[in-house]
């Protein structure tokens, strides 16, 4: 089971703050592809993925138990 969090525009698009994915493992790129297919308009080109609160690369592998977050372009300050 992999936990994914949604924030800001993505929280509104998906209508949820988080959900669980019943997958043993997948890459960051595969997770982004899944999100784009599941939620049209996701906009994966502009989104980073954090795995266990650290920015991950597209080829990084996510394992069951990991906590992921989709990070759209940030706008703090």
């Amino acid at each position, binding site marked *: 089971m992999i936990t994914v969090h949604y*924030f800001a525009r993505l929280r*509104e698009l998906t209508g949820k703050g988080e959900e669980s994915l019943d997958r043993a493992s997948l890459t960051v790129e595969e997770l982004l592809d899944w999100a784009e297919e599941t939620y049209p308009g996701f906009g994966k080109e502009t989104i980073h993925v954090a795995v266990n*609160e650290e920015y991950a690369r597209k080829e990084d592998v996510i394992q069951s138990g990991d906590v992921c977050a989709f990070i759209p372009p*940030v*706008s*703090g*300050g």
Partner: protein
Amino acid sequence: MKRFEIVDTPIDPQTYSDLVLHPAAGAVTVFTGHVREWTHGVRTLYLAYEAYIPMAEKKLAEIGAEMEAKWPGVQVAMAHRIGELKISDIAVVIAVSSPHRKEAYEANEYAIERIKEVVPIWKKEIWEDGEEWIGAQKKYPKKGSGSK
């Protein structure tokens, strides 16, 4: 009170200034970022900020560590507020102390630039005729293109 934190209540800059003040500090710079009413000719009614809190606090602390490495002797405390903020409310505070003023100014500016780059915080602008999450793909409504 933590040195690097996300808060959902009004920010008192003095609190963070006090956190970094110590006898060897000859300078303290305190930056406060405020909610601006007019951006590119569009009037903001209020802002709503959201954060991935545990990661945001971790990233603030990392920025603090970067600053202490780049400018030895500086001490840093920073906070960002989330939730709904009115015009002129403080959204972010950065307090930096150093033995001499130059480092305190430089490190403080570095901090706000890094916050805007890496800390998972998002701002939604609410206008008279719409609203939008602001990010790299910044979009502002054209003047007069609103629904009213």
